[in-house]
Structure formats: structure tokens, C-alpha cells
């Protein structure tokens, strides 16, 4: 081939490549499950296979929600009732692995992620839908529940038998089950041969593979403004989870009462606006985001180290952005959004 023809073919290839970088290989589906909106993105999957995968994932989410619901009749509420009576409980296989992992993560977090404060969360009204308006629980009742110190360390598991030595233990896996469910969805997708996907449950997500020739691009929303704060490119297998005081809340006399309860005080953790955690496993990222939110701007690095978390961004209620150096080098702030950043010591 003469040089002119070679150059010609090369140019045509470049043009064809540019034209081929489109979005038509992306499959999107959304459905309501787990009390939130599930957004499924698949890349490079045939439409019929993608549709079938989405239906299976949706059914899985509904099944898991049915088993793990913290206040409507479920395997979890039955477990709570039996544990409260002091009985040894044969755990339903649909919840045993979930309970074990929640207990493990709770202990790693020094109890700041506490999956057994269901009574306290119920007292605050976060088991109601819609949320109560204008009601802060009685202070004496809050003190009483905190004094009972329900903890994951009160639980003993032998095989499939569970015991509690504290009748105040009441599981509520709201700060963890969504991540665990996303992990299960990723397992399901991989079994179906799908290797490029995002499972996004109400803004918390795990992504595998990539978007064709490029990584997945994720925007992180500002906790106080209707705007994107920062973005991150991820590929391979990465979860991005944010816990924020804007997700479920009500206001009393202009003060926001949100759903992330500090188990030490019994009141909503009040120094943090949001925490973003990046980690491979979604369940751990979910629990860690809650634990670090409760830990607040002073304690979060110690808890992150204990939980093995390497990438954290915490925005406090004053608007200061706290993060570790590795996180700073991983994310890209939008113009003007990184005015007040405080770096921690490295986490590793």
C-alpha cells in the first residue's frame, strides 16, 4: 500500500473510532425497591439479556427487602421479637450472613455503626413513613434507651443459633442492608456474565468494569447546594457511598433532626453534614459511611483506620471539607468547591 493510501485508511479509522464512541451500548433501568430508587446501568450487554438481568435484580431487591425489613413483618422482626424474649433463636438463612457481617463491622467501628439500636431509631420516628413532623422524643426515654447500651457485642452466634444477653437489642440494618444488597446484586450480575455495570441504590453505588473505552464517571453531589461538589473516575470494582443529614430528616423549630443517630447520645449526630467513603465492598462502605458520620470531624481518621477504610471525605456542618491525602488525589473538585479543605494524616 502506498503511503498516501495508508494515510487515508488511517484517517478513516480515526473518524470511524470517533463516531463509534457513543452511548448506545448503555442500558438503563430504574425501579423502586428497598424504600428507594434503584438505578441499574449496564454497558455492552444485549438488550434482551440486559432486560432479563434487570428483572432478576429487581426481584432480588424485593426479596431482600421483604426478609430484612426492620419494622414490617419479616425474618428480621421475628428475630428481634425472639431475641427480646431471651430465647435462643435459629436464624433464618436469609439473614444470618447479614447479621454476622453487621456485627463484625460494628465491632470494628467501636460501636459507632450500631445495628442493634432499632428501638432508638423507632423512638425518633424513622420507622414511620411519612416521617413525623415537629416531634422530638421525650429526653428521659432517650436517656433510658441509651443507658441500656444495646451492642453487637451482646450477641453470641454459634452456627445458626443466636443469643442475646441484652433484651434492649433490636436489629435495624438500615445503615448497612442497602450496601449488602448492592453486593448481592453485583454477584448476580457476574453470574449472568455481566462485567460492566453500576448498581446505584438511592445515590449509593458499586461499579464494576468500565464504560467501554473509559472508566465510569461519578459525580458527588454537594450536601448543601443543588450542585455537583466533585467527581471521580472509577473502574474495576469500586463502591462510592455517602451518608448525609439531608437524606431522611424533619425539622423542629428550624433545627434539622436527621436519621443518623449517635448511639452514645441517642440524638442525631450534629457535627457532620455528609461523609463519602470509597471502598471496594458496598456493605463495608455503607457501614463505614455511617460510623464516620457519627465519629465526626475529630474522630473519623481513627475509626477509618480501624475499619480499614483508605478513602474518606467528610464535610462538617460548618462547610469545612476534611479528607485524607489519598482521597484528595483521587477526586476532582468542581471549580470553586474546594475552598476550605483540611487534610488529615494519611490513613495507611
Amino acid at each position, binding site marked *: 500500500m502506498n503511503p*498516501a*493510501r495508508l494515510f*487515508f485508511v488511517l*484517517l*478513516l479509522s*480515526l*473518524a470511524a473510532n*470517533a*463516531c463509534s*464512541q*457513543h*452511548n448506545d451500548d448503555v442500558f438503563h433501568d*430504574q*425501579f*423502586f425497591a428497598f*424504600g*428507594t*430508587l434503584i*438505578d441499574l*446501568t449496564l454497558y455492552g450487554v444485549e438488550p434482551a439479556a440486559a432486560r432479563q438481568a434487570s428483572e432478576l435484580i429487581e426481584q432480588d431487591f424485593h426479596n431482600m427487602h421483604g426478609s430484612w425489613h426492620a419494622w414490617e413483618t419479616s425474618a428480621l422482626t421475628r428475630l428481634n421479637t425472639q431475641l427480646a424474649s431471651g430465647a435462643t433463636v435459629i436464624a433464618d438463612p436469609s439473614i444470618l450472613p447479614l447479621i454476622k457481617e453487621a456485627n463484625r463491622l460494628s465491632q470494628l467501628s467501636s460501636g459507632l455503626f450500631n445495628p442493634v439500636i432499632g428501638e432508638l431509631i423507632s423512638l425518633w420516628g424513622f420507622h414511620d*413513613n*411519612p*416521617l413525623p*413532623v415537629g416531634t422530638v422524643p421525650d429526653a428521659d426515654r432517650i436517656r433510658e434507651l441509651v443507658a441500656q447500651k444495646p451492642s453487637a457485642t451482646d450477641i453470641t452466634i454459634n452456627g445458626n443459633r443466636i443469643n442475646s444477653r441484652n433484651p434492649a437489642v433490636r436489629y435495624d440494618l438500615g445503615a448497612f442492608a442497602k450496601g449488602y444488597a448492592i453486593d448481592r446484586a453485583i454477584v448476580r450480575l457476574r453470574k449472568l456474565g455481566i462485567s460492566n455495570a*453500576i448498581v*446505584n441504590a438511592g*445515590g*449509593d*453505588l458499586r*461499579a464494576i468494569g468500565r*464504560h467501554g473505552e473509559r472508566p*465510569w*464517571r*461519578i*459525580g*458527588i*453531589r454537594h450536601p448543601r447546594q*443543588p450542585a*455537583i461538589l466533585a*467527581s471521580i473516575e472509577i473502574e474495576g470494582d469500586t463502591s*462510592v*457511598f*455517602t451518608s*448525609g443529614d*439531608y437524606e431522611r*430528616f*424533619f425539622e423542629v423549630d428550624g433545627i434539622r433532626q436527621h436519621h443518623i443517630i449517635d448511639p452514645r447520645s441517642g440524638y442525631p449526630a450534629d457535627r457532620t453534614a455528609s461523609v*463519602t467513603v470509597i471502598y471496594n465492598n458496598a456493605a463495608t462502605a455503607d457501614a463505614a459511611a455511617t460510623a464516620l458520620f457519627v465519629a465526626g470531624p475529630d474522630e473519623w481518621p481513627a475509626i477509618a483506620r480501624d475499619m480499614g477504610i483508605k478513602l474518606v471525605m467528610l464535610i462538617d456542618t460548618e462547610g469545612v471539607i476534611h479528607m485524607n491525602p489519598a482521597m484528595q488525589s483521587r477526586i476532582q473538585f468542581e471549580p470553586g468547591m474546594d475552598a476550605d479543605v483540611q487534610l488529615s494524616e494519611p490513613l495507611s
Partner: protein
Amino acid sequence: MTRADKILLALVICALPFLYARLWFPDEQARYVRIQAGDDKPITAELSPDRTLQVHGPLGDSVIEIKESRARFLKSPCKGQQCVHSGWLEAAGELTACLPNRISIQLLGRHPRFDAINF
């Protein structure tokens, strides 16, 4: 090389910067809004002309406002009103939902800047 080859070559050379500019500077302009109500099949509506749409959910009707190629929850029968407070969606890929009324809206475009939004 024939004359036709030369013309084609010239056209390709002229077009290449535009083709690649589209990749390097993605078109984030939202063109449509996708509205999902409960388990119904989602509907897709154009972002012009300006108008409001009533969407029925289990709590009643939510009102979606479309204005200047943006969309938002203008009214909703939920108590928390978080969907209304979340404001305008402006860029392709952005979404918000009224969870109590099981309605979500998402802006669509050919080349959204983000594949997903974390919040």
C-alpha cells in the same frame, strides 16, 4: 489517488476535529426528562416547550415543571417535600425522586457528563 479520493480525504480531515471534540467536550445538554411512576413503564418527555405535567402516585398527584430545558418537582403531596427542595435538574444524568409518592425524574441526553450521581 483519484479526485474523489482527494475530496473524501479533505472532508475527513475537516471533520476529525469536530468528531473528537464531541468526545473531549461531551454534550451535556439534557434533551428529555424520564419520568417513572411506581412500577409503571417510564415515560420520556421532551424538555420543551415549558409546561407542567401531573403525575399520579399513591399519595396523589405530583407536579413536574419543565422550564428552559430543566425539570423539577414543583409540588408533591408528600410531607417531607424533599423532592421539591431538591430544586432544578439541569444536566443530563441528574435525577431526583419523591420516594413517598414513588415518582422519579431524570434528565436524559446523548452524552451525560456522569454515569451516576452519588449523594
